[in-house]
Each structure stands twice: as C-alpha cells, then as structure tokens.
C-alpha cells in the first residue's frame, strides 16, 4: 500500500509539470495580454492610454519577454519560494487572493458532496429496492428534473422568489453584518443559513447521476445468488440489503470524490456568479477574461493539485473499502 502511494505521488510530479505548462500556454493563447485588455477597458471609458506608456508598463510586468522566460520566472518562484507572483489586476500577491476563496470552495464542495451522497443514497436505495413502483418513478423524475434544469436557472428562480416574496437578496455567503466580522459562532451560523441555497442547487445536478448509478449497481447485486441464499436462510430483508449489496453498490460514491473539486470550480462558475458567492469560480473567470495570467495560472495550478490529491484519496479509500480492488496490476509479480 505504501509503495503504491509513493509511486502515485511520484507520478504526480510530471503530471503537475504538464498541467502548469498547459495552463500557462492556454492563458497566453488569446490575442493580446493583460495590458491590451487593461487599455481596452480604459478605452471603453474613453481614457486613452498612450503607446509609450503601454510600452513601459509592458516592460515592468515583463510581458515583452518570450513565453519560456515568463514561464520559467513563474514556475521557478513557485517551486523555490512558494511565490505565485503578482496579480496585475488586483495589484496584490496571488497567494493573498486565492486562499480565502479556496477555503470557501472546499467547504462548499465538502458540504454539497455530503448532501448529494445523502440524497442519492436514500433515493437510489429506495428506487432499487422498490423497482418500478410509483415511488421509484416519482423520485427518479425529480432527480432527472434536477439534472435537466441548468443550475443557474434554478439559482435565478430561487433569487427571484426571495426577492419577490421575502424582500431580501440571497446573494453572497454572509449577511452584511457578518461580511467583515471575525469568525465567531454567529458568523458560522450565518454562513450555514446562506450555504444551503448553493448546496441544494449544486447537489440537484450531481444527485441524479449518482442516484442512477446507485440504483443500477444495487439492482445488479440484488439478483445475485448470494442474496437469494441469504434470503432463503431467512435473513431479515433490510438487514440483508444493508449488509452486502448496499456496501458493494457504494463504490461510485467514493470514486467521484476526486472529480468534485474541478466540477465545482468549472461547472458552478455560473451559479457562483449569479449567487454572488466568494468562491474561486468567479475570480478565475475574471482573471481569465482580463488575462491576469499569474492569477489565472496559479488558480489552474492549484485546481490541478487538488484534483490529483482528490483522485489519489478516492483511489486509496476505494481500495480500502473494497477488498476486491488491487493495488498492483494482476500480471505483475
């Protein structure tokens, strides 16, 4: 097991290198750079920036240098000193910008994953055990609606309802009075009160597929001979299901852990933008559209790391929960 983990960790290094190179390259693909975007933004307000001025700024930001020089400066600073560089747009070190948001993103990810699991577990089990019953159809239908409705639409509907009928905005993760307050029990409770809306919205999308997988897996197990045998021996039905088939059907829950973070960040950008959540998605979107390359690059980098760690974690958990899974390839001895 330890050997397995060590090998996986070693493989991560070239993967990370590839991720960093690719993300830095992609950020540079669109025409222009941060300064042209900046100049264009100023131009939109009819504040024209002189060409000489742009040239000097270009030099200051190092944007006039070739790709490999820029990349090297960025990556060597990260590796040697943990310095992610400076965000052009915010005029701040990147690291001071991303941690807060990464924390809230992680929190949102963990809570909505747990919520998705809970919903999917209950509905999936029910609809497998009571296959083709009215309840099966009903819950499956609900699940599919969740899958088919775009998340941002759901967010907008919820926002409209709370604006129209409760006269308050649902945006953000904190009430104004807690916005800048230090952490306290009150603030945590306030966060919880705001958190359920994005959690429900994000979970509705994820739950449907997990429900289906759960249902299908459980159905497979339910018709296995060992189930029939156990039943013939007079084992109580619910105890029987919970003891064997259910546990085997749980694999997809664990194996998706690794994907949760990247899906949340890329897939929920629109939800976060609509709901005004201070998570990573909107900041990443903003960084990309203003071509704030060190910020965007570092973000993609962090997400890459999180994804790799998530995948590793889910693999380890999976192997640990399900003894049938082997660490080594079968053929290798």
């Amino acid at each position, binding site marked *: 097991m330890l050997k397995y983990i060590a090998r996986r960790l070693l493989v991560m290094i070239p993967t990370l290198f590839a991720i960093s190179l690719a993300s830095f390259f992609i950020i540079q693909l669109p025409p222009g750079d941060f300064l042209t975007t900046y100049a264009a933004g100023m131009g939109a307000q009819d504040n*024209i920036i002189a060409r000489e001025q742009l040239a000097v700024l270009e030099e200051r930001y190092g944007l006039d240098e070739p790709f490999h020089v820029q990349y090297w400066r960025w990556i060597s600073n990260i590796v040697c000193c943990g310095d992610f560089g400076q965000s052009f747009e915010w005029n701040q070190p990147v690291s*001071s*910008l991303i941690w807060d948001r990464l924390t809230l993103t992680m929190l949102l990810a963990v809570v909505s994953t*747990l919520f998705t699991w809970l919903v999917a577990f209950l509905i999936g089990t029910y609809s497998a055990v009571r296959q083709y019953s009215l309840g099966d159809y009903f819950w499956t239908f609900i699940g599919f609606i969740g899958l088919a409705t775009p998340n941002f639409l759901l967010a907008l509907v919820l926002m409209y309802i709370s604006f129209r009928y409760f006269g*308050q905005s649902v*945006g953000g993760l904190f009430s104004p009075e807690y916005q800048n*307050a230090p952490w306290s029990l009150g603030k945590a409770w306030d966060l919880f009160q705001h958190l359920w809306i994005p959690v429900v919205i994000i979970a509705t999308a994820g739950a449907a597929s997990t429900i289906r997988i759960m249902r299908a897996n459980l159905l497979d197990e339910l018709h296995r001979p060992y189930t029939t045998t156990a039943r013939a021996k007079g084992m109580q039905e619910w105890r029987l299901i919970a003891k064997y088939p259910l*546990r085997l059907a749980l694999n997809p829950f664990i194996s998706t852990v690794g994907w949760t973070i990247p899906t949340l960040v890329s897939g929920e950008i629109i939800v976060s933008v609509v709901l005004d959540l201070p998570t990573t998605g909107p900041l990443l979107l903003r960084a990309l559209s203003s071509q704030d390359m060190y910020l965007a690059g570092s973000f993609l980098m962090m997400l890459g790391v999180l994804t790799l760690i998530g995948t590793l974690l889910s693999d380890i958990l999976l192997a640990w929960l399900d003894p049938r899974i082997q660490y080594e390839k079968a053929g290798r001895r």
Partner: protein
Amino acid sequence: MTTLSSTNRWSLLLALISACALLAAACSPGTGDDSAGALPDEEEAGDDAIAEGQSQAPELAEMVDNGELPPLEERLPDEPLVVDVVDRIGVYGGTWRRAESEVTELEVTERRHIGYERLFNWTPEWEGGKETTPNVATDVEVNDEGTEFTFSLREGMRWSDGEPFTADDIVFAVEDYYFNDDLRAEADPRHLDSGGPPEVEAVDDHTVRFTFDQPHGLFLQGVAEWATQKLTALPRHYLEQFHADYNDDNLDELVEESGLSSWVDLFLDKSDAMRNPDLPVIYAWQVTQPFGEGNDVVFERNPYYWKVDPEGNQLPYIDEHVVRLVEESEVIKLDAMNGELDFQRSVGDPADRALIMENAEQGDYRTVTMEPDHMNTMAIHLNQTTPDETKREIFQNKDFRIGLSHAIDRQEIIDVVYFGQGEPFQIAATSELFYNEELAKQYTEYDVDLANEYLDDAGYEMDEQGRRIGPDGEPISITVDYANDVNNSWTDALELVEGYWEEVGVDLELNGMSRSLHTERVRENGEHEATVWTGSGGLVPFMQTHWYFPSTAAADFASAWGDWYLNPDDPNAEEPPEGPRRQMELYDEILRTVDEDKQVELMRELLEILKDEFYSIGISTPPEGLGVVTNRMHNVPDHMYNSTSWPTPGPTNTIQYFIQE
C-alpha cells in the same frame, strides 16, 4: 469483515473528510484575523445627532474631550472651504453603502467618491468644461502668456495624520512621481506637460509655481481632470521613505519585507489610498479596511478634513463609506432595487429603466438621472488612412460618407435598439456652450433616394445586381472591426445598418471581436477599414478632442493623421489635408490662450470645420443613465453628469450627502 471494523472504517472516513475541511480552513490566512471590526453601524444614524448648532461629529467631539484629538480650530485650516449644500444642512452619522462588480471601477472610488480633491475642481454645474473652482488652492495667478501658474494653497490645511499640507508636497508629486523616470508610465502626466515637464517651485509653504516651456491654456482644466488625481495626494513626509531618490538606507529591506518585486511596486502600493490605511490623505474619508482584504472596502471619516457647510459644521456628514465587490452587475441591480445601496451612480442599462422605476416604492428608493458625457450611442468611423489604397480613396470621398449617412433609418435604430430613447445625432458637442444644431443634425434625415443621389455623385455606379462598383472595378464592401463586448447594442445596431446600406448597394461585413483585440488592431495599429465607438467629449470638447479632429491615434476615422499630430516623425504618421491641419492649428492656439472666452470662440471655429469635414457617421444621442438613491440618503442632486473627465459623482460634493432615516 466484521460489522465492527466496517463501522470503524466509516467513522474514520467521516473523520477524514471533516479533517480535510478543517485543514483547508486553517490554511487560510484571512479567516481567523479579519479584525477590521468595521461593521456598518446603522443604529447610530439616528437623528439625535443634528448638526445644527454643532460643529463636528459627536465621535470627534468625544475624542477631543478625551484628549485624543486636538480641538476643531486646530484641525481646520485658517479659512476652511465653505461648501454649499444641495438641499439642506445635514446630520452626522450613517454609512453610505455601495457595490461594484468591476475591480477597475472599485479602484477609482478614490477619485470618484471619496477624494475628488484637486488644486482646482470642476464646478458642480460643469458648463462646457470652461470653468474650474478653487479647492485645495484658494487662488491662482496666471501670466499673460499662459506659461506661469502661481497657486496659493489653503493655509493651515492638514493631512489626515495632522501634518501640514505644503507646497513641497506638490513639488514632490510633480518631480518625483509624475515625471520620475520609473514612475512616469504609471503616473500619466499628460495634463502636466506642455512642451516638456514644468518647472515647479515652492515659493513658500503655501505658494507653488508651475513654469511651462510652452503656454498651457488648458492647465486649470487639466488639473481638474481624471488623470491628475495624485497631484494633491502624495504626502512627502510619509512617502519619501519608499522612494529610491530619498531613501538610501533601508529601501531594499522594505521592498524585501513587502514581498513586492521592486521599489516602484512598493511606492505605488504605499501611495495607493485604496490599499494603504497608513497613507495620510486630504480626503473626507480614509480607508480602514483596504482593498483586497475581504469583500468590502471601508472608509472612515478623516478628522482633519478641511471643508465646512454654510453653518460652519465640519464635513463630511457621513461617518463611513462601504463598497462591496460583487461578482456580477446583475447583483448590483438586485441590491439597488432592494434599497440596499444608498447611492449607486449607475444601475442597469436602458432596458432596465422601467423595472428600476417601478420598484422604487417597494425598495424605498428614488432614481436620479445621469446625463452621459458622450454624445453618441455609436459613431461609424470609416478609416481614411486605412492601409488599402482603394478603400482609402472611397472613404475620403465626402459624398460617399454623406450618402451612407442618409441611408440610415436612425429613428428605427432608436426604437428597436435603444428603447425609443435618444434622437438622431452626428458627432457634435452636446454642451449648451458649443451646441451647433446644423453640425448635430446634418445628413441625419433618412432618405434612400437622396442617399443614392450622393453615392452616384461620388462616382460609384450600381451594377445590374444593385451593387456599387468601386474604382478598382470590384463591388464596394466595407469590413467593420468592432468590439462586441463593450455593450450589447452595437451588434444589433450594426445589423440594421448592414440592411440599410445593402439597399443602397454597399456591402457591410460585421467583424465582432473582443475589445482587447480591437484595441490592438484599431487603436494601436490603425489597420481597420471601419470601426464603431461611442462619441466621448460631448460635454467637454476641450478635453476629449479625438472625435472632433484627429488629435490622437484614437481618432478612428483617420488614425495616421492623429499620429501625425502627436509626432510627425512617428512611423505610422501621415500628413493630413488642409481641413484637419487647420483644426490642429486652432487647437494649438487654444492651448496658447489664457482667456476663457477666447478659448470658447476658437473651439467653436474648430467645430465649424468639423461640419465641413464630416469625418464620421453618428447615430443617436445616448439614453440617460439611472442612478439609485435610497430615501434615507439626502442632498444627492437629482441630475448629474456621467463622466470620467468630471469624475462622477465627485464634483457634486459627496461630502455634503447625509443619511437620515
């Protein structure tokens, strides 16, 4: 596997997950110690704090009583500036809440909302950008040639740390910021330059003299403009320690400590009133929770502020200014309609107008109108110096441009795209001082026959397929490179124009692109055949001239002529014909003129030539914008300009706004 061990595994798994969450929380530096403690304290905004008969905010009076602050007389200058109130004398207290969705808009809170404090300010009325009013300076003497400006500064005025504000601070700003080799690009000294950097001299503590090589007739206006903010914002006594010319001892260590890459970065960071709470300012409010820490930026009252209301009460009335950075402009709209933003200068676009007005009662707010300083929704510029020789010949043909102008059904565009708001308009000044009916309305009449007549006269006959043939024997086709992410309306309007022009035999190809690509292609290289942009400078033709004559490379109707005006030796530059050259001479003369009335006269003459030249094809006047003010906020004028030249709402004196439930 036993039941026991499996339960253990599950609880372990759960523990692992929660540990992850905790770990993530612990990794975050900002969460544990966000102790700015600057909660919007709305209870305090009650009306027990009537300013009448008082002379300073109750909190400040208390601090004076406790000996934490010198008495008011010692804090105010000898002659504090008396500011007129819009409606009535206000009360102290309260929080002005605002929101922004763009980082760049949030950053300019300094010059727009809390600190429009120049030597001379634009007047609240802003009549054509002719006049400015004393502010930090009490008076100015100008010599007859317009080369020497001697400002008298307000005696006894202080920075927010209690240090005196002196002529030396201005000298520092000019010599060591605006014209410092390393800082210059960031500083943007365009209004301080007239034939080179000025010579600045501190005659005594309260007198500062600018001497220019060449006359600088628009200097006082330039001082009030957007780009000149830092002239009165750099406290020498504090900032010298971050400047390479003054600190040989430990600057490197300071840079190292800050984690920034150079002293330039450090200096810019330390001199940024949005980011550095230690920076002494002369603004009414000083930042206490800087930009980048949390979602809000919070400003609090400066006890040394140097203006009073007509009854002698120290301003500002409002305790606190809080700006929240939100992810999207839709959120601002929603918050404003909930009455959660006390004064937001621009909410929604023309399509939202009805919605915002309808909700006013429910949201307990009122709306104020924002008159745009630009004069056109969309001006079509055919680049008369485009690289293609044939196109160039066609575009330089005035009859061709007139024909195309008559072919456009402007009323339909206004009705369909701009919700019926606005009137047909060419490139022309909207300010009363310079309004010229003929210039504004010429060739705006929709008349296809007339259009065809002009196009025939231009010499481009139609072939049997109804296409007009250019001098090279090919059908005329114009590609318009436009930025499709600046606003939502240009694509719609251009599609209509495409239809109108097809009717008169001219093909229009729409080439939408991101505005950064547009900047590179059009503004930097001048490679475009045609483009569109709004028309700025409607209210201040003096300061924003590039649509009236090719004064910079941003004059999209003839980029190379603009280059020529800036620098005849520029590789892109081309010498313009007589008309534009005469305009350039007139503008140069304005710069040499000190007399305001003479300047106005010269500007009118310049605009008269624009009428003959007819460079660009305008569509319509822009719709008025809407600002939202909660009913607890007072003294906000019902009407103001929306501009960058006149950094809205700064010149309306935000210091006399007040909050009373």
